[in-house]
């Protein structure tokens, strides 16, 4: 949907990224590691929307936050626009934050309730640029128009506008610095479907207008299917499958992806309640099974799955999966 500007190399290249959180007992002594991200490697191409899907606790939000520098990575490289940003000091990283922005689940909630919308929108420009008031005001008005809000809203407080409009303001705030990559963390959760549709349309319009790239973190597979170019499926800190959205949804290779797709209710189609076969819940991420992490729930598991961990195999055009048995 945005092949117009895919000239240069990948905008973001993640290599072997790890983020371990210590598990401590009552005396503060470390008793183990919670591997929220375990050797994640993926590339984000310029101008695309890459979807990250998975159940809660699979590490998809940790991935977004580690990229953003909110969590410090344990190991691995994050190459953004040619620079490794994984181990940067906060002062050096601040420069990069202009181009790499993070949108929280509810961007409206990150607005200061005692500030008018104008002040909230000016703030990033005050921090990151040396523009004068008039120049800032011009840019803010442009952005506000782009997200579909009237300029009169600049003089309102956050509580005076609706939740959907707050989201638009939150987005405008991110866009004022003209970033190149935006990490959207669950951008549509908690929205009604009629509002969700308009917000998604806004994302697509902004992508084209500002030449953006999105990392779209979501648990809602039908939304991901509709707007993402490629999708990565995560399970307990690992990418188990990645590929072009159409390919992954049409022919999922990993058993976990298959079960995830089989669980989406499809109106007018077969009923999931008649056909769903996956049992059980994900294991405790602090105490992972040996070998493949999915084997405890996998219907295909064989002894080999417990012995070693399968790596991502790019055996299919535009698609890779981490499973010994996928074919």
């Amino acid at each position: 949907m945005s092949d117009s500007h895919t000239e240069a190399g990948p905008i973001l290249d993640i290599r072997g990224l790890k983020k371990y959180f210590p598990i401590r007992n009552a005396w503060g002594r470390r008793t183990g590691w919670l591997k929220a991200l375990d050797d994640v490697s993926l590339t984000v191409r310029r101008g695309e929307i890459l979807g990250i899907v998975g159940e809660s606790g699979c590490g998809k939000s940790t991935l977004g936050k580690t990229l953003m520098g909110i969590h410090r990575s344990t190991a691995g490289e994050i190459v953004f626009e040619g620079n490794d940003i994984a181990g940067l000091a906060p002062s050096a990283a601040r420069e990069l934050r202009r181009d790499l922005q993070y949108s929280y689940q509810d961007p409206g909630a990150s607005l200061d309730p005692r500030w008018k919308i104008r002040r909230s929108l000016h703030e990033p420009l005050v921090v990151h640029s040396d523009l004068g008031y008039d120049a800032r005001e011009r840019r803010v008005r442009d952005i506000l128009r782009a997200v579909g809000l009237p300029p009169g809203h600049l003089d309102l407080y956050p509580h005076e506008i609706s939740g959907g409009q707050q989201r638009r303001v939150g987005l405008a705030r991110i866009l004022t610095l003209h970033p190149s990559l935006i990490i959207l963390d669950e951008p549509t959760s908690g929205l009604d479907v009629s509002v969700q549709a308009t917000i998604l349309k806004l994302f697509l319009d902004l992508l084209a207008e500002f030449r953006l790239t999105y990392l779209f973190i979501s648990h809602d597979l039908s939304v991901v299917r509709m707007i993402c170019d490629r999708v990565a499926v995560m399970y307990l800190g690992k990418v188990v499958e990645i590929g072009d959205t159409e390919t992954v949804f049409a022919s999922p290779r990993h058993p976990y992806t298959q079960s995830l797709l089989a669980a989406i209710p499809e109106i007018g189609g077969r009923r999931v309640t008649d056909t769903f076969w996956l049992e059980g819940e994900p294991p405790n991420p602090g105490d992972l099974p040996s070998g493949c992490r999915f084997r405890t729930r996998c219907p295909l598991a064989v002894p080999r799955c417990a012995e070693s961990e399968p790596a991502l195999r790019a055996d299919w055009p535009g698609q890779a999966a981490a499973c010994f048995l996928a074919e």
Partner: protein
Amino acid sequence: MAAETGPTDLLRVRDLQVGFATEGGVAKVLDRVNLTIGQGQIVGLVGESGCGKTTLSRAILGVLPRNAARIAGGSIHFDGVDLLTLDPTVLERSVRGRRISFIPQDPYGSFNPVFPIGSQIMELMKWKSPALSEREAARNTWLPRLHGRRRFREDRARVLDLLRSVQLPDPEAILAKYPHEVSGGQRQRLMIAMALLTEPKLIIADEPTTALDVTIQAQILKLLRRLATEHRVAVLFTTHDLGTAWEICDRVTVMYAGQEMEEAPSDGFFNRPSHPYTARLLSSLPSRDGGLVGIPGDIPSLVDPPGGCRFHPRCDFATEVCRRERPGPSSIGPDSDHVVRCYHPVVDHPRRAAP
């Protein structure tokens, strides 16, 4: 208003009007709402946030906040009695929690974090056990209640039975755990088991799968459907997710801004939506052929709602009569029980392509 409960209708809400006192005036949250649930049916109550679905389910349970809610008119007939005129103490002792039970959206908030799960379930059985006779259950609630050893044993066996039937592994161990020690999916299974413990005729499930992951949601829906059939209990399933409604409901009622718009069997509702609002709602769902339509405009303020059909300011077909008066229920399409409240129902509906 005469009790016109049919032989197969378990619950019949007619012309229910509920308002809430707010600082800006009375918010008219429910406007002459009708709802019917047959014996053993799973009825979906769908609508966007603020449409009044939670208020309706609370009104049926009789747990609307007493200081703010005003029930201005209508009736709620359950099993032959009008719950609105029933003595509140009778309602509390023999209906709520015994014949109508509740599954909340957030099961964590419904457990007391400082007591083990087992003792909380047994406390419930002490008061609401089906082994108690109607007279025992209706005894004064301020007296300490005995839980005789024999009844305790029977109740406990019953609890363990039900925990097994909701597929909880090792039920005895789970009863000894604290609420934070079990996962979200397991807590929701516990809630379903607790809702079934008192052998109710109606379970009100308020968005029971919203907080769950999609694979867990599929398991819970499957379980709920199976248990409702086995125990022959009716379910009022409120949700904003049309996909889950399609999964398990026999009938669906859609609400908008405090008015019910359309009521139909699941198949007719999803394949032949007749109300313009239903049609717009279904077409805003994400679909492969780019369903990015949405519904322009905002949900109206309930303090000063638009007259007539409350959807008219956002409706493509609205005419003068829609502004003046709310349309009455009329049946439409091949199903005689497909009821729509609209002057200009959508008639030619291209059937949604099956995948």
